[in-house]
């Protein structure tokens, strides 16, 4: 039995790994390396509720400090800088070294930075608690806001800023919102709803330069137009934090490469969460997923393996995004969709897109329609499908389709 586990990263994956190890009866030492000066905290509220609230970081903590003490999970406030695989040790920035029986890399991902001409130091990102707190304060002065990127983070932030009365412009290089992640039908729904709320979109353009003015900034777009702004926030994707793995000679691709059991090349090192590139039984290819569900389910998977109950990782991916009044939920992965069936009214306020590939249901996107989402999770989780003709029939209650 392993004597000690070191977990690098105290986000959703790292914290769940520690919690699950104890729940599964692991008695050895658990050290959780946390490179931020806060108790481990949740990420989703940073683009939403936290920005609207009073700014109390305690509302974000996964668990109070006492919890870690009670569970004998040692929180180490430091940053891992190197892995010595032969010595089974992790060196920290402070110079300390942590020995491990097993090492879990839960290092997450970091926001990509915009590199353009001009005042780029003024571009804000919704990345961590420190940055979110600065944004929360900025929003109080109701700034003219420019959001770069119409992905989940950009839209969540845009909706939050708009709800505080800010004028909001969103620029996006693609021709629709959330282009990487949702079907065109769902993109159009969200664009319509955000526009009704007063957000202005600019598609097919990118920002070329930012110029400081006496009063705010001027952003020059690639189509020659200028947009004035007091606050510029970018949400243009993330990059997995793989440096530790790369330096240690572990395989990496668009993430730390792990096998079906979430083990790296090294039998004493696992990786979980946003930083991993793993074989997905749902996508039938290697993927990197950025979601709370993937982080927590992968954490549970390795904790089971480390306490004697290994099983391949096969959890169904699911995801949510709250944008203003709109609750988007996605079950499964829509990669390769060749047919969609709609349920509900895409011109109303609640509908779902059932995504099929070669006749089989592979994903369900739902907005304000949690019942369809839960049907999707159940059916897809069981490896089953629903006949498209049944889905298309509004008179059928899909709940009856589940045994």
């Amino acid at each position: 039995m392993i004597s000690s586990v070191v977990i690098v990263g105290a986000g959703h994956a790292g914290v769940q790994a520690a919690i699950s190890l104890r729940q599964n009866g692991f008695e050895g030492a658990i050290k959780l390396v946390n490179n931020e000066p806060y108790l481990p905290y949740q990420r989703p509220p940073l683009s939403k509720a936290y920005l609207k609230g009073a700014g109390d970081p305690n509302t974000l903590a996964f668990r109070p400090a006492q919890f870690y003490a009670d569970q004998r999970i040692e929180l180490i406030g430091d940053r891992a800088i190197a892995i010595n695989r032969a010595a089974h040790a992790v060196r920290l920035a402070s110079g300390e070294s942590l020995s491990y029986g097993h090492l879990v890399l839960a290092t997450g991902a970091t926001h990509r930075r915009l590199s353009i001409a001009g005042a780029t130091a003024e571009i804000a990102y919704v990345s961590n608690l420190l940055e979110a707190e600065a944004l929360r304060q900025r929003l109080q002065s109701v700034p003219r806001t420019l959001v770069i990127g119409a992905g989940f983070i950009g839209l969540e932030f845009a909706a939050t800023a708009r709800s505080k009365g800010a004028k909001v412009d969103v620029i996006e290089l693609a021709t629709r919102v959330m282009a990487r992640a949702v079907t065109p039908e769902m993109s159009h729904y969200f664009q319509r709803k955000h526009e009704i709320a007063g957000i202005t979109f600019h598609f097919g353009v990118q920002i070329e330069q930012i110029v400081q003015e006496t009063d705010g900034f001027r952003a020059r777009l690639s189509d020659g137009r200028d947009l004035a702004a007091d606050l510029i926030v970018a949400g243009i994707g993330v990059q997995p934090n793989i440096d530790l793995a790369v330096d240690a000679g572990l395989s990496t691709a668009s993430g730390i490469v792990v096998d079906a059991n979430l083990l790296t090349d090294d039998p004493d090192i696992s990786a979980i969460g946003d930083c991993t590139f793993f074989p997905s039984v749902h996508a039938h290819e290697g993927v990197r997923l950025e979601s709370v569900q993937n982080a927590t389910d992968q954490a549970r998977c390795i904790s089971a393996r480390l306490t004697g109950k290994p099983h391949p990782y096969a959890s169904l991916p699911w995801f949510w995004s709250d944008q203003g009044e709109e609750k988007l939920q996605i079950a499964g992965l829509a990669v390769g969709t060749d047919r969609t069936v709609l349920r509900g009214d895409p011109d109303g306020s609640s509908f779902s897109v059932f995504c099929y590939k070669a006749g089989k249901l592979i994903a369900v996107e739902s907005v304000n329609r949690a019942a369809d989402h839960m049907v999707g999770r159940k059916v897809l989780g069981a490896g089953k499908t629903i006949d498209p003709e049944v889905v298309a029939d509004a008179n059928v209650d899909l709940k009856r389709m589940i045994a």
Partner: protein
Amino acid sequence: MPNVIYVDSSDVQRTIDVADGVSVMQGAVANGIDGIVAECGGNAMCATCHVYVDEADLARLAAMTADEDALLDGAASERRESSRLSCQIVMTAGLDGLVVHLPERQV
């Protein structure tokens, strides 16, 4: 401050002060009550904060939304008439003494 009584699946009880405006889920998580997981942080997305509300208290609660109703179908333990998502039960003085039973599993 109003009290919530959490009864786990082995009938062990703990009485916790849960302030007005704080959810039954947050009260559990802040006080080390194991039987509530709250993976999605209180967003009515994960159904891992599932509780069975004591019969005597059911009528005291505000009605559940369609979203909560849908999510409860996804709970790991059996759904009953008394099932609620504890992240959606917000404490008030009127709910003092609320008793909730924790299911065997949340995942």
